[in-house]
């Protein structure tokens, strides 16, 4: 649903001068300053609400996070903020929790890739022949989990994975406490998140496939390429911008997707085994009320985001030159 916006390069603004000039120019232009304002102001006025909201709720807080990260403060308005310079960063970087949570974040991202990339590509390629009404039905069914509220999803999976009465253990004949064992808790979180998004990813890849000009494959087939050769050397390369988008989405949103599940199912446990970077940040801010430390972690998170997004966008741009 967030499709394309990351990799999209804004199209050059087409010439709309005629239109722009005309919009309010029903009176012949006069040099009076009021007339000038009347002519220039409209687009800015239309943009005003959005830009004010953007500054108040996104950019100004971002700047404040940078400031807050150099203070020690417990979020209580009446207590003073103490300037500690880079103390929070030193504390953060020397904390063993940080390294572990970053590692767990990486695990979650790698664990998500089968659901956001491997399965969707395989399914989309294998099911190209399915069209018409049947396709519409499948489409509606696989997309449904995306619409399930995360907490409702957590509730039903807690029931399915219940150690004694849950359907999973009873069907498998096992006795595993999935959500309360350090080894399986992370796996469960990944699978549940994967269940939420896999259908959406399938639809993204299917749309990507539908956008590929069939002439390329037809031409290759006339030249004697086999079906698998066409898939390997034509279809997948042409699909690479879509794949890059899915990877970017996985990297940037995995921590966000898992948050409601972790908060309701494991609270970061057992023994911290599901505490990823995102959850750690939340704990610093709203459990330990350590605003400075949470802000410092937020700044690192933001910088990491920028680096990853820049790398992947560059990759996507390089890949998308295939279809020129």
């Amino acid at each position, binding site marked *: 649903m967030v499709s394309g916006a990351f990799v*999209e390069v*804004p199209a050059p*603004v087409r010439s709309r001068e005629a239109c722009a000039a005309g919009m309010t120019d029903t009176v012949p232009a006069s040099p009076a300053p009021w007339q000038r304002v009347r002519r220039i102001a409209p687009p800015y006025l239309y943009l005003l609400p959005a830009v004010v909201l953007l500054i108040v709720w996104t950019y100004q*807080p971002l700047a404040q996070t940078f400031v807050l990260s150099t203070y020690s403060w417990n979020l209580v308005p009446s207590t003073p903020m103490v300037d500690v310079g880079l103390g929070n960063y030193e504390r953060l970087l020397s904390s063993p929790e940080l390294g572990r949570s970053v590692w767990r974040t990486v695990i979650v991202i790698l664990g998500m890739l089968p659901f956001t990339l491997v399965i969707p590509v395989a399914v989309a390629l294998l099911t190209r022949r399915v069209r018409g009404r049947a396709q519409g039905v499948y489409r509606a069914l696989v997309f449904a989990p995306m619409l399930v509220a995360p907490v409702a999803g957590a509730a039903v999976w807690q029931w399915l994975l219940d150690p004694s009465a849950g359907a999973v253990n009873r069907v498998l004949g096992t006795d595993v406490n999935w959500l309360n064992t350090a080894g399986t808790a992370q796996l469960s979180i990944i699978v549940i998140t994967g269940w939420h998004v896999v259908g959406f990813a399938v639809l993204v890849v299917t749309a990507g496939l539908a956008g590929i000009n069939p002439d390329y494959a*037809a031409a290759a087939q006339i030249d004697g390429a086999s079906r698998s050769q066409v898939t390997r050397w034509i279809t997948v390369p042409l699909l690479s911008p879509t794949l890059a988008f899915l990877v970017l989405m996985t990297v940037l949103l995995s921590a966000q997707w898992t948050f409601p599940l972790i908060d309701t199912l494991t609270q970061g446990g057992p023994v911290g085994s599901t505490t990823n970077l995102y959850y750690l*940040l939340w704990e610093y801010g709203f459990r330990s009320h350590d605003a400075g430390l949470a802000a410092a972690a937020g700044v690192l998170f933001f910088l990491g985001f920028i680096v990853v997004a820049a790398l992947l966008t560059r990759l996507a741009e390089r890949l998308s030159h295939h279809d020129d």
Partner: protein
Amino acid sequence: MTTDEVAGESSRGRRLGGHVVLGVLSLACVFPIYWLYATSLRAPQDVYSLSVLPWPLSTASYTEAFAKNDVLGMLFNTGVIAVLSALGQLLVALLAAYAFAAWRFPLQRLLYLMFVGTWLVPFQATMLPNYVLLSRLGLLETLAGVIIPTLCSALGVLLLREHLNGFPKELLDAARMDGRSSWSTLWTVVVPALRPALAALGILLAISAWNEYFWPAMVLQRSNAVVQLGLRSFMGTEGNDWGPLMATAGLACLPVFVLYLVLQRHIVNAFVRSGLK
């Protein structure tokens, strides 16, 4: 489809294989949802049953869920948030997208990049200052505090701008010839033509607002005013009361599923009916 005819047998095999793959995936995707509703409809003594069909059907779990929590109140609050938030986001995004599409002005590119740039600002990097600001404004633990910070949807602005870029300029010019103001052009020319896109975007935004967890959890910390949070606290306090828990979870998803059925048809109709693309 000439390759189909030539390939004949093997193509039919591939299509069958496709049905098997999609069938298995659909089943895996839908089963937990089915199990949620199946459990919620079992009689209390059958909750632990593994039979696929919940029989005999019983609404006892729903009665109990309503008795234990103010489910209707939570659904109403969540609905108010979802509708107001979606309408507000639509209006703000429409005005901004109109500005970008109908004029050329200094700083346009910079302002546009401000919207694109929000993708790079993770929510967790801004949550603390936002929380502090809300508490200064006295909006913590209020529904307004949940709605207001979400009102600018960058996704909405970018999507609507894309739609508006495909908008025939002749119509805007014709409106100008008629001597209409830009404001009246927006409402009498642009909005009617954009209605399908606005409806689709509005539904998307409403569903996201309905399912939103993180921000309401922050703003409404100790209250159960919205259904996601009520469900969470129900899970915490009565975690093993599966029947009523599944009934509450089922109700929390129901409006979205109903909307989804309408949405699919709506989008198809919208695109067929709209003369402009």
